[in-house]
């Protein structure tokens, strides 16, 4: 029973990471109709920045804040400089640009910091923080940080004028202009925020999966699955989808381990995580593309 609870807790911790990245993906999708394939690599790059600062002596939370600010600026710059000129371009061009960003971030990280796996510290105190036997201090910390970030974002979008302006700009850019909203800057801001959320996820997960340029690949795939499960246009759904997928992923691996223990037959385990994500993605896209909470877009002829 205890092991089962551990798996749930660990699933929630993973799910928190997926929820963050999924939220970043949905934020960009809602305002621009684009899927940011480079989200994972951007987050990874920011995490490396924080590692570099820490290796120069900075405190964890200082380096963390710096990474978040860095990714915010990077997001705004990418939107204004690289994506804005292409806003009428065909889908293929946009996808290609995202893949280009992915390639650059990944290879530059490898070039600057090498592909050797690095250890990444956890800011959460080892001893008294967790719930012994159920959830470790870092995992609990990850869930808490995620909930705080999500809470802040919720308050921002719901209750501040700027958040309202961004929502309006995402929903109906033309009309938003007609009430005086500077839509172009709203989009850039949205990108900056999304990139920041991704950086938070990167800094939180690096302790678990170890820091290396390819660390976000699988996480990105799971984040896609989460966003799809929740409904790609729905931020709340993305978050919920993240937690669901996180727990599901762990449950499947756990079930596989148990089956192997009991019958000696290996069906599925940690080595198949990406395959499971692929199956979820294909399944949702074919069976219920709107996800749990999304709306199906009907195309008008």
């Amino acid at each position, binding site marked *: 029973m205890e092991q089962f609870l551990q798996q749930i807790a660990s699933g929630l911790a993973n799910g928190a990471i997926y929820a963050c990245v999924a939220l970043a993906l949905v934020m960009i999708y809602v305002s621009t109709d684009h899927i940011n394939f480079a989200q994972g690599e951007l987050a990874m790059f920011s995490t490396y920045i924080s590692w570099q600062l820490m290796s120069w002596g900075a405190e964890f939370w200082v380096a963390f804040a710096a990474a978040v600010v860095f990714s915010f600026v990077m997001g705004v710059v990418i939107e204004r400089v690289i994506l804005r000129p292409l806003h009428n371009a065909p889908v293929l061009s946009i996808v290609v640009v995202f893949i280009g960003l992915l390639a650059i971030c990944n290879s530059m990280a490898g070039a600057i910091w090498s592909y050797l796996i690095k250890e990444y510290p956890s800011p959460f105190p080892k001893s008294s923080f967790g719930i012994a036997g159920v959830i470790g201090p870092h995992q609990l910390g990850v869930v808490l940080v995620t909930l705080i970030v999500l809470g802040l974002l919720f308050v921002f979008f719901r209750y501040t*004028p700027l958040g*309202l*302006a961004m*929502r*309006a700009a995402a*929903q*109906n850019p*033309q*009309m*938003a*202009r*007609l*009430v*005086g*909203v*500077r*839509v172009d800057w709203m989009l850039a801001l949205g990108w900056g925020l999304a990139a920041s959320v991704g950086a938070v996820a990167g800094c939180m997960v690096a302790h678990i999966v170890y820091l290396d340029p390819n660390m976000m690949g699988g996480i990105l795939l799971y984040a896609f699955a989460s966003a799809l499960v929740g409904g790609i246009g729905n931020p709340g759904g993305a978050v919920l989808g993240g937690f669901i997928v996180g727990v599901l992923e762990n449950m499947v691996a756990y079930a596989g381990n148990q089956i192997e223990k009991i019958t000696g037959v290996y069906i599925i385990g940690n080595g198949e995580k990406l395959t499971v994500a692929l199956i979820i993605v294909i399944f949702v896209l074919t069976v219920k593309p709107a996800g749990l909470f999304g709306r199906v877009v009907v195309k008008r002829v």
Partner: protein
Amino acid sequence: MAALLEVKALKAFYGQTQSLYDVGFAIEAGGITTLLGANGAGKTTTLRAICNMVRTEGSVRFDGKDINGMPTEEIVRLRIAHVPEGRGTFTTLTVDENLRIAAYTRKDKQGVRDELERVFSYFPRLKERMQQQAGTLSGGEQQMLAIARALMLKPRLMLLDEPSFGLAPLIVVEIFRILRLINKEEGVSILLVEQNAALALDLADTAYVLETGRVVMWGPSSVVKNDENVRKSYLGY
């Protein structure tokens, strides 16, 4: 008295297609002007051209200032409110949020609160539906919301694109009554595009008739109303 809005030799293009060829008119401060014409004459395009939502050539001056080529949101910040075709309400935002977003550019908090009260006095129904999603309102209520939202911008000029579209006659009469009130009490100048020529000529003091992207006649609405061609083409008798 210098005109509030002066349009001269306006041309407009949708991509490569030209829609307006030579449109010119002037709106005095405090006046109500209407643009009449058949479908495709260019009435909606003219409103869009004023707000730079389509590619234009020619001269558009607001309060003496050349606004041709300014980004739409900057034109709006000069206090020109455009209520587009189809209302343009933010359907997933609440009534309250729709009104607040219009106040986004305003710094005077007290002024905004006063404005809200005034808006509710014109449209009491909106006050009841504050927390309702705008998309769930009836057509008439959405039109009222669109106009209320325009008022929140504290505009000097309001552009209205076919406010009567798809609405029941009684509601339309009510809305036009409120428009007249807004013009008198708030001093908001109105440029009205309407297919319902009779109502429009009733409300407006000046009328322009557009045909295939050009102004073909204009004058005080009492004169235009009695013109034989206008009566035959747009008033039906």
